[in-house]
Structure formats: C-alpha cells, structure tokens
C-alpha cells in the first residue's frame, strides 16, 4: 500500500477536479516571482511553504500571514525557503481577514467507510472537538443536521461585525466534499482547514489530501 501525502498545491489541484473551488493562488519558486505575484494580487497576502509530505504547516512554522508590502513578502520568502523542510515552492495567496475558522474533511473509517466531517477549525480544533460527522455522501438535509449538531453552531451566524456564513455555499461545499470519494477512489483523508467565511464567501485557505494506492503494478 503506497500512501501519499499531497502538497497543498497538489491537494487543491486534486480537489478542484472534484468541483471544489479555492481562491486564486500562485506557486512561486523565486523571491522576485513571489513579490511580483503578491503585487499583482494585491496586499495583504499570505506566504506558505509547499511540499509533498508536509501535513502540519503551522506547527512547522511554514506560514506567514497578513504580509502588507513587497519587503515583508521578500523577507518571508527567504525565511520560508531556509526552514530546512523539503519545499517545492512558496504559495502566494490573498490574505482573508475573517475572524472565524472552520474545518471540513473526509476520512475513511474501518467499519463505515468514507465519512465527512465539519466543525470548528483553527488552533483550538483538537481541544474543543466541536465537530460532527456523517457517512458520505450526504444530502443537503444531512448537511444541515450536521451544522445543527455543533455545540457552537451560533458561530455560523453573525459574529463580531461579520455577516453570517453563506449557508447555501456551506451546504453545497459539504455535499460536494462528501462526493470526493465517489470520484477519487484512492483518497483516504482530506482536510479543508481552515475555511474562513468572509463577506458573502467561504474561503478554503488550505487543503490536504492523502491517498493510498494498492501496492499492485
């Protein structure tokens, strides 16, 4: 069994094929390129080290948020490329300023097969454990029920000056995510983490895909 942990860039490409949308981003392989892309996109931006096998970027200190000008982008680039991790390139992304973070994902349970998850994301995910699961694929009704099960479902509403999360988009996203295993038979884990609601959209800022292929030739 060959297990593969996709890079962020590869993960998003993989999931785009299943109809999941991500904000525009670039993979820069030089400092000049990263600065050029950041300017083209408009500040503030985020830079992230991207490489196969890298699952937890924050823990590995591979994320630089809210970079507001060219100088800070360039120094972030240098910083990330000298981290010692095996990196394919640096992702340049528009910074999403939303205050709330959610997580959605797919896992393959030994007994029940593919499941979809949704819950509170960000740095307290593992502590709060406010997540719900359903067997995949799900209907919109199932997705709605998942959201109601969250202990802190009120976080989906208006929050500290931010508008309520776009419910239709969230339900669509969960349904679509739950269908990924129908299209990609070798997937065993997916993380969309964090999902950040901002204005009328939900931005999937980071993604991780893990596949497992039978060891046959």
């Amino acid at each position, binding site marked *: 069994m060959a297990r593969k*942990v996709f890079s962020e860039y590869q993960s998003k490409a993989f999931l785009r094929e299943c109809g999941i949308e991500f904000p525009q981003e670039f993979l820069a392989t030089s400092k000049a390129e990263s600065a050029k892309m950041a300017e083209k996109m408009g500040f503030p931006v985020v830079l992230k080290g991207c490489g196969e096998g890298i*699952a937890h970027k924050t823990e590995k200190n591979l994320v630089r948020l809210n970079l507001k000008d060219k100088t800070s982008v360039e120094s972030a680039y240098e910083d990330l490329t000298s981290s010692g991790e095996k990196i394919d390139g640096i992702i340049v992304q528009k910074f999403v300023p939303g205050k709330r973070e959610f*997580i*959605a*994902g*797919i*896992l*393959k*349970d*030994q*007994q*029940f*097969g*593919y*499941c979809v*998850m949704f*819950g509170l*994301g960000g740095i307290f*995910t*593992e502590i709060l*454990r406010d*997540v*719900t*699961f*359903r*067997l*995949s*694929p*799900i*209907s*919109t*009704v*199932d997705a*709605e*029920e998942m959201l109601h*099960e969250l202990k802190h479902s009120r976080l989906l509403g208006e929050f500290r000056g931010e508008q309520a999360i776009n419910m239709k988009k969230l339900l669509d996203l969960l349904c679509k995510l739950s269908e990924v*295993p*129908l299209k990609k038979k070798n997937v065993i*884990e*997916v*993380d969309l*983490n964090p999902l950040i609601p901002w204005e009328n959209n939900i931005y999937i800022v980071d993604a*991780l895909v*893990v596949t497992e292929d039978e060891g046959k030739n």
Partner: protein
Amino acid sequence: MKEKIRYLFYPESIAVVGASTNPSKWGFVVLNNIVTSGYKGRIYAVNPGANAIGGIKCYKKINDLPEGAHLAVITLPREKVFDALKECIAKGVKSIMVITSGYSEAGKDHAELENKLVSLCRDAGIPMAGPNGQGIFNSFINLSATMAYYNIKPAKISFVSQSGNMGNTMIEWAKKYSMGFGKFISSGNEAMLKTEDYYDYFKDDPDTDVVISYIEGVDDGRRFFEKARELAKKKPLIILKSARTSQGKKSAESHTGAMAGSFDIFKAAVWQAGGILVQNAEEMGDAAFAFLHQPLPKGRKVGAVSEGGGWAVLVADALTEEGLELPAFPQELIAEFNKILPFYWSRNNPVDLVAERGEGIYEKVTELMASSKNVDIFMSLGVGYWYGAAFKIADSKLIEESMKGTLIDYIKANGIHQAKHLIELWKRLNKTVICASDIMLSDDFQKNEALKLLIDNGIFVYPTPDRAAKAVARLCWYAEYLRRREKQQLTDYSSSGA
C-alpha cells in the same frame, strides 16, 4: 432470508436438540422454559439417552422427529453442533438458534468452526441465530426459548440484543412499570444473522411498532447503516451502544482523521439513519414507552400542568435544556383559566394547580390547554395524586371511620374520572400526552387505579420530570428527522462504502 426469520419468532413447532434431564444444564432450562411459558406449539426433545423429560417425549435422533421443526434450539456440546445442524437441514428444519458457546467469542482459533456452521446454513438457505446466543422470546405466542422464562403482557416492542442479559434487563424494566414487551432475540456472535437482519424483519413485522437494539459492535458498517435507515423510515429505532468511550486509532495525517473516535462515527451513522441513541437501559425503556403509543409531536411547544410548584419549575428547566419550548399562554386562554383557578394562580406555563382539589378543575384546565393551538405536547405532572389522597383518608386518625368509606369512594371516583378524561382527550386530539408522577418512584403505584388506567391505556407515567422531558425530546427529534426528509429526496448511498 427476511421471510424465513419469521420461523425463529413464530415457530409452530420447536425441537430442543441437546435436551437434558439435568436441571443445571441449558438443555433442560430451555426446554423447561418453553413448556413453562405456555407455548402452544408442538414441542420435541432430542436426547439419545432418555425416554422423556417431564412429559415431553425424547427422540434419539433429529431424523426420528415426526416433522422438520420450524425452530431447532441447539444446546449440544460444541463438538456435536456441526453434525446436528447437518441433520436438522436434512430433516427440513426451518430455522436454527445455536445457544452453544465456544466459537469466535473465544478467540480467532475458534472462529473457523463458526464459519463452518454459517456455510452449512447459508448453502441450505436456513437462518441461524447465534452461536453463543441466549435464545428467543416472543410474548405474542408465549414463547420463552431462553435462559429465563418471562411472564409479561404483549406489547409491540421488539428487541435485538448482542447481549443475552440485556434482554432480561429490558423485560424486567417493562415489568417494573407494568408495561408490556414483545420480542427479544439474543443474537450472540451474529455469525450469520446480524443485528441489521433482525431490523429488516422487524420493519415489516405487524407485531412490532418500536425496535430497541443493544449493540457492542457491527461487522459491516454500511450494511448496518442502510438497514437501520430503512427501518427508521417506518418505525422508531432506539439504540444503546456500549464501548462508547474507546478511542479510534490515531495514525491519521489529517486533523479530520485525528478527530474521529470510533463512537463518533457510529453515532453519526445512527443519527443519519434516523436512529435514537440512548445512554443506558433506563433511557431505552423511557424512550420505548413513549414511542410505543404516543403520536409524534407536530412541534416543540409544550403546555404543562403540575400538582405542585417544585415540579413545575424543574420540568421547565428540563424541557428548556432539551430544546423544547414552553410558550406563554394567549390572553384568551389565561382569561379562561382565571374563571377556573384561584385568583393567585401563577399565570405561567407550566400551570401550577396549587393542589387545588375542586371537582372538575383538573379536567377543565387539561381540556383547555391540550386543545390549544399553541400546544403540540401536553404534559401532566403529578397524575394520580387525587386518587392517592384516598389512601391518606383511609389511614387518617382524625376522620371518623364511619365517614371514611363515602369519602374514599368519592375521591377515588374523581381520580378515575380525571384519568379517563385524559385518555379520552388524548385519543380525541391525537396529540402527544406525557405524564409524570413521583408515585411511580415506589411500587405503591400498583395500587393507584388512576395511574394504572393511564399506563394500561398506553400513556406511560414517568417517575421524574427530567425523564419525561428527555423522552419528549426524543419524540420531537424523530418527528423532525422524518419531516425534513418528507420534503426532500434522500441521497442514494448504495454506490459508496469501504
């Protein structure tokens, strides 16, 4: 296979294979319980060494039986089981319950023997329950082919349990509260017939209105889910799962993978299927008794009356915590209550009847509140108090003996009238009616004819307000689950899985 499972629950003839003359052996106990429970079908005993056990004639071999019995209960030592099953099949036996232990439950080395039994029965197309199951109970035909024999009135509750003694627990539970019970099967190792196969059978069984299920583990999660979902679409399915606290494996790369404990996924599957999860036997009984006779509520609005202030406040807390609503009453309803209740009544929901003993007050308040459009669920707390007052009169050292008889008769008649009125109202309005009374805390409730009347007519009386509130919440949850799906087509799940 589904149709053939009927032979397990409704056999017209039973052969106990491995019947014993020794009262300490399963082979005696099961035969004894079948006879003692009053089973009316044909009973055969197979024992090569005895002529008869009690009045039951013994046959030396299965082949000697006058017919292929509908059900063969196997209590033989393990080494004789395989051959016995072969003989049963050759004889034309229709279904088999293997009580004998020492198979997969004893470890991997013993699983092979179990697989052989399965192959044999599968090839012959014969349903086999067990092995290592405790037996089958069906009150509708007075059948106790089990370790214990049960004497309980029939009710349309069917129980599939992965543990034999949980059957005993639930039947005792029902008996404690004068409730009935229907069927119970101890599914044992589920070598061939799994929990979900019984779901499939209960789904179409006319003597089943509520299914309860005790689960330690499932083999094929997707199949379990599909069958549970099909059942829950038609009938309430209440599940008690043990081993809830064990954590899943932690070898995941993703956050999603790391967040999933094994019970998290099981719970999700049950909820998605429309099953009701409970924490213990008490909750399982409480839920089953509510689902058995109560119509599903149309909404979450509760109107409640209480004989006493403490319970009124406690039930308000419990209902609110369970996500139910206690709406304020409209002015016109308050005006009606003003005409009936003393001037100092609370004007809140729940209405505290302040132990007001005026004749007909309870009936009038109940009628008005339960009929209100503002009320989906009517709750009555302290039922049976009035009738119970008669016992206090009887014990009184102040009231003259010559006066007591008339007074007691009057009070009892009123208590009965209240109960009859509530039953009539319940049937007329077809609304959810939930009762609670602390009289249920002791066995004295058996003497309270008003309470007995409610229970015998299908209105269960909960011993505490919070247990009542929890049962109501479960009715609401299931009603809403069904309503949401009536509006929308279900996803097709058949194409995916592990």
